[in-house]
C-alpha cells in the first residue's frame, strides 16, 4: 500500500502573511496618529474623518481583526495543514475566506471614518458588515472542519483544539453581540438597552479578547514554539489540561468590565471570582511554553524568533496576571477609565500578539520561500527596537494611569476635591502621552524594518506555492472488531455534531431572545425617566457618530470622589431607553452623565466650535463642522418607529409628528443662542448635539425622590 502524495497550500498562507504585514502597519499607523492627537488635537488636520473619536475604532478594529485576524489565519492555514497531514479542504473556500476577510476590513476602513458605527467597542461595524463577517466566518469554519475530517493523522494536536474553540466561541459571541434593528442600510439600533446592552457588550468584549486574541495564539504557540526550538513542548499533558481548563473558565469572566456600574453586585463579584480563577490556566500555558526552552537558552540567545517568543510569552504572563488583578474591586476603582487599562491591553497586544506574530512571520516566510531569512541583523534590530517600544509605551501609560486615577480621587483636608477641574488631571499626563507616542513610533519602525526584511527574503527565494508531502491515508476503521482502541465508527460524527450543535445554539439563542425582545426587563424603572425627544435622539446619534463615547463616559460610580465631581451616581433605571448604552470605558475627558444644565447652550456652542475657548489647554478637537452641517431630519420617523419597536413608549403615530416637535425644540435652542449673540440656523447638527447634552441626566435631577 502506497502513501498518498499531496500538496500543502502555501500560497494562501503567504497571502494572509502579506495582509498581516500591510494591515499591521496601517493599524499601528492610525494608532500612532490618534496617540499624537491626544496632545496635538490639530493632528486631525481639521478634518472630521480623521478625528480621534472616529478613527480610534478604526485603530482597534484594524489591529484586532485585520492585523491579528490575518495573522491567526496565516498561522492556522500553515499549521493545520501540517498537523492534519492534508491540504486545506477547498482552495475556493480558502480564497473566498481570504478575500472576504479583506473586504470586511476595507469596508471597516471606509465606514468607520464616515462615523458609521454601532458604538459597541470592538463591534463598531454596522449590520451589513456584521452579516458579511458571519458568512466569511462560516466559510472559514467549513474549510477548517473539512480539513480536520479528511486528515491523515489520527491524533488531533492540542493546537487544533484551540483553533476549534476559537471558531465556535467567536461565532456565538459575534452573533449575540450583533443583534441590531436596522433602520437604514448604514444605521441600526441595538436591541437591548442600557444595563442589558452593556452586559451583552462586555460578555462579548471580554470573550473577544479571550477567544480572538488568546486561544488562537496559544494554539499557534503550541505548534510554532516546539518547531522553532526543535524540541517537544515541555508537557503535552499539561497543554491538554490547560486547554480544557481555559475553555471552561474563560466564558464566564465578562462582567468584571462593569464593576461599580449599575450591573447587579453579585454579577460583578461573579466576574471577579472567575477572572481570578483564570490565572491558573493562563499561567499553565505560559509556563509550559517557557519550560519548553529549558536547557536551550543558548538557542534563544542566537535565534531571534525564539527571542520574540520568549518576550511574547512573558508579556502574556504579565497581562493575564494583571487582568484578574484589575478585576479586583479596589484595584479597579483606581484603574478603570484611566490609561492603566490602555497600558494593560497594549502589553497584551504589542507583546503577546505582536511579537508572536513577528516570530511566526520570521520563521514561516523563509520556509515557504525555501530560503534563509534575508538579514538576521535586521531581525534582531527589530526585536530590540520593538521591546524598547513596548517599554516606552507601557511605562508612561501605567504612570499616567496611576497619576490620573489618584488625582481624581484626591481630597483636600477640607473635604473638597483637590483637582475639581478635570482638565488639570489631563494636563498633568500630557508628557506621558508624548512619551507613549515615541514608544509607538519605535515599535512601528521595527515593523517597517520587518516588512523590508521579509520582502527581501521573498525576492531572494521562490515561493513553493504547493509543497509536496506524503502520508498514509487514515484507513477507515469501521471494519475492525468493536472494543478496540482504534475503533472509530463515529470517527467523523463529532465534528458534524459540533457544527450541528452550533446551529442548535443559534436557534436556541433566538428562541431565548423572544422574551428579551419584548423587553420585560426587571430593571428598576424610574418614573421620571422619559424617552428622548426627537431632537435629542438625533443629537445622540451624532454623539455616537462622532465617537464621543471614546473619551467621555456616561457612568458615575458610587464613590464620593465621583459624586462630588459629576453629581448623583448612575441608576440602572436611567438607561432603559439607551439603544445602545453609551457608558464608555475610558475617561480622556470628564464624565457627561450629568452634563445637562451644567452650562448654558452658548458654552456648549463655543466649546464644540473650539474647546480651548472655554477651557484653555483642552485636548478635545474642534467640532466646527457640526455648525456647518445640516441635520438630516428625514430619518427621524424611522428612528422613532424603531424605538417604538424596541419598547420605547412614544405615543402611537408619533413618528409623524416627531419632526414638528424637533423643529420647535431646535428653534428654542437657536433663539437661546441668539440671545448670546450667536447666530446659527436651527437646522444645524450642533443644535441637536446641544439638545442631547443638555438633556443628559436631567431626569434624575428633576426629582431625586424617584431614586431607589
Amino acid at each position, binding site marked *: 500500500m502506497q502513501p498518498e502524495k499531496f500538496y500543502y497550500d502555501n500560497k494562501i498562507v503567504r497571502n494572509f502573511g502579506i495582509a498581516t504585514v500591510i494591515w499591521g502597519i496601517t493599524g499601528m499607523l492610525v494608532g500612532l496618529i490618534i496617540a499624537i492627537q491626544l496632545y496635538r488635537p490639530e493632528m486631525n488636520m481639521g478634518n472630521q474623518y480623521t478625528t480621534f473619536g472616529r478613527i480610534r475604532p478604526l485603530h482597534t478594529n484594524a489591529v484586532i481583526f485585520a492585523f491579528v485576524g490575518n495573522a491567526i489565519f496565516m498561522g492556522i492555514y500553515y499549521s493545520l495543514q501540517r*498537523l492534519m497531514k492534508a491540504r486545506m479542504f477547498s482552495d475556493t473556500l480558502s480564497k473566498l475566506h481570504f478575500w472576504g476577510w479583506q473586504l470586511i476590513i476595507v469596508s471597516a476602513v471606509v465606514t468607520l471614518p464616515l462615523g458609521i458605527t454601532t458604538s459597541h467597542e470592538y463591534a463598531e461595524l454596522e449590520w451589513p458588515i456584521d452579516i458579511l463577517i458571519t458568512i466569511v466566518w462560516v466559510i472559514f469554519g467549513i474549510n477548517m472542519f473539512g480539513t480536520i475530517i479528511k486528515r491523515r493523522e489520527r491524533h488531533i494536536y492540542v493546537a487544533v*483544539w484551540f483553533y476549534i474553540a476559537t471558531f*465556535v466561541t467567536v461565532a456565538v459571541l459575534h452573533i449575540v453581540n450583533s443583534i441590531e434593528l436596522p433602520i437604514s442600510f448604514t444605521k441600526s439600533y441595538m436591541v437591548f438597552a442600557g444595563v442589558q446592552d452593556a452586559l451583552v457588550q462586555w460578555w462579548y468584549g471580554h470573550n473577544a479578547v479571550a477567544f480572538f486574541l488568546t486561544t488562537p495564539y496559544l494554539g499557534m504557540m503550541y*505548534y510554532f514554539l516546539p*518547531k522553532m526550538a526543535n524540541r517537544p*513542548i515541555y508537557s503535552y499533558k499539561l497543554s491538554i489540561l490547560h486547554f480544557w481548563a481555559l475553555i471552561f473558565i474563560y*466564558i464566564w469572566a465578562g462582567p468584571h468590565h462593569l464593576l461599580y456600574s449599575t450591573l447587579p453586585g453579585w454579577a460583578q463579584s461573579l466576574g471577579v471570582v472567575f477572572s481570578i480563577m483564570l490565572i491558573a490556566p493562563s499561567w499553565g500555558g505560559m509556563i509550559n511554553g517557557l519550560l519548553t526552552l529549558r536547557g536551550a537558552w543558548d538557542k534563544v540567545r542566537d535565534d531571534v524568533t525564539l527571542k520574540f517568543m520568549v518576550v511574547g510569552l512573558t508579556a502574556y504572563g504579565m497581562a493575564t496576571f494583571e487582568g484578574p488583578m484589575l478585576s479586583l474591586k479596589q484595584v479597579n476603582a483606581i484603574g478603570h477609565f484611566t490609561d492603566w487599562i490602555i497600558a494593560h491591553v497594549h502589553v497584551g497586544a504589542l507583546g503577546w500578539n505582536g511579537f508572536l506574530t513577528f516570530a511566526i512571520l520570521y520563521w514561516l516566510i523563509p520556509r515557504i520561500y525555501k530560503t534563509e531569512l534575508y538579514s538576521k541583523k535586521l531581525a534582531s534590530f527589530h526585536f530590540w527596537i520593538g521591546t524598547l517600544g513596548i517599554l516606552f509605551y507601557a511605562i508612561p501609560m501605567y504612570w499616567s494611569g496611576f497619576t490620573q486615577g489618584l488625582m481624581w480621587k484626591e481630597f483636600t483636608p477640607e473635604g473638597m476635591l483637590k483637582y475639581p477641574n478635570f482638565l488639570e488631571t489631563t494636563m498633568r499626563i500630557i508628557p506621558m502621552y508624548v512619551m507613549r507616542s515615541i514608544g509607538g513610533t519605535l515599535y512601528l519602525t521595527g515593523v517597517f524594518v520587518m516588512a523590508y526584511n521579509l520582502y527581501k527574503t521573498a525576492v531572494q527565494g521562490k515561493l513553493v506555492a504547493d509543497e509536496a508531502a506524503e502520508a498514509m491515508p487514515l484507513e477507515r476503521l469501521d471494519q475492525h472488531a468493536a472494543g478496540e482502541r482504534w475503533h472509530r465508527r*463515529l470517527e467523523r460524527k463529532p465534528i458534524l455534531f459540533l457544527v450541528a450543535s452550533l446551529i442548535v*445554539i443559534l436557534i436556541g439563542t433566538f428562541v431565548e431572545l423572544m422574551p428579551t425582545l419584548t423587553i*420585560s426587563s426587571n430593571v428598576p424603572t424610574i418614573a421620571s425617566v422619559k424617552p428622548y425627544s426627537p431632537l435629542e435622539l438625533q443629537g445622540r446619534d451624532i454623539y455616537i457618530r462622532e465617537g464621543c463615547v471614546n473619551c467621555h463616559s456616561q457612568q458615575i460610580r458610587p464613590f464620593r470622589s465621583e459624586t462630588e465631581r459629576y453629581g448623583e451616581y448612575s441608576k440602572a433605571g436611567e438607561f432603559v431607553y439607551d439603544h445602545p448604552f453609551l457608558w464608555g470605558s475610558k475617561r480622556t475627558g470628564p464624565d457627561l452623565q450629568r452634563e445637562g444644565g451644567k452650562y448654558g447652550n452658548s458654552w456648549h456652542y463655543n466649546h464644540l466650535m473650539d474647546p480651548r475657548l472655554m477651557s484653555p489647554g483642552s485636548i478635545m478637537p474642534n467640532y466646527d463642522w457640526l455648525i456647518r452641517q445640516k441635520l438630516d431630519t428625514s430619518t427621524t420617523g424611522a428612528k422613532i418607529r424603531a424605538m417604538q419597536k424596541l419598547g420605547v413608549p412614544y405615543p402611537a403615530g408619533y413618528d409623524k409628528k416627531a419632526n414638528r416637535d424637533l423643529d420647535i425644540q431646535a428653534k428654542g435652542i437657536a433663539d437661546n443662542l441668539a440671545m448670546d449673540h450667536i447666530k446659527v440656523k436651527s437646522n444645524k447638527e450642533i443644535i441637536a448635539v446641544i439638545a442631547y447634552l443638555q438633556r443628559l441626566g436631567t431626569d434624575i435631577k428633576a426629582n431625586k425622590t424617584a431614586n431607589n
Partner: protein
Amino acid sequence: MSIIYFLIGCSVLLALIFLAAFFWAQRHGQHDDLYTPSVRILLDEEPESEQKK
C-alpha cells in the same frame, strides 16, 4: 435583567458543546498517548543541518 437568562443560556450551551467535544476526544483515544504526538509534529520535515551537533 432578563438578559442574564439569555447569556447564561448561551454560556452553558457553549460549555456543553465543549464537554461533548471532550467526551468525543476521550472516547476516541485522543488522550491515550499524551507524549508521542508532541514529538511527532517535529518529524514531518527534513531536519536542518544546524539542528544536529
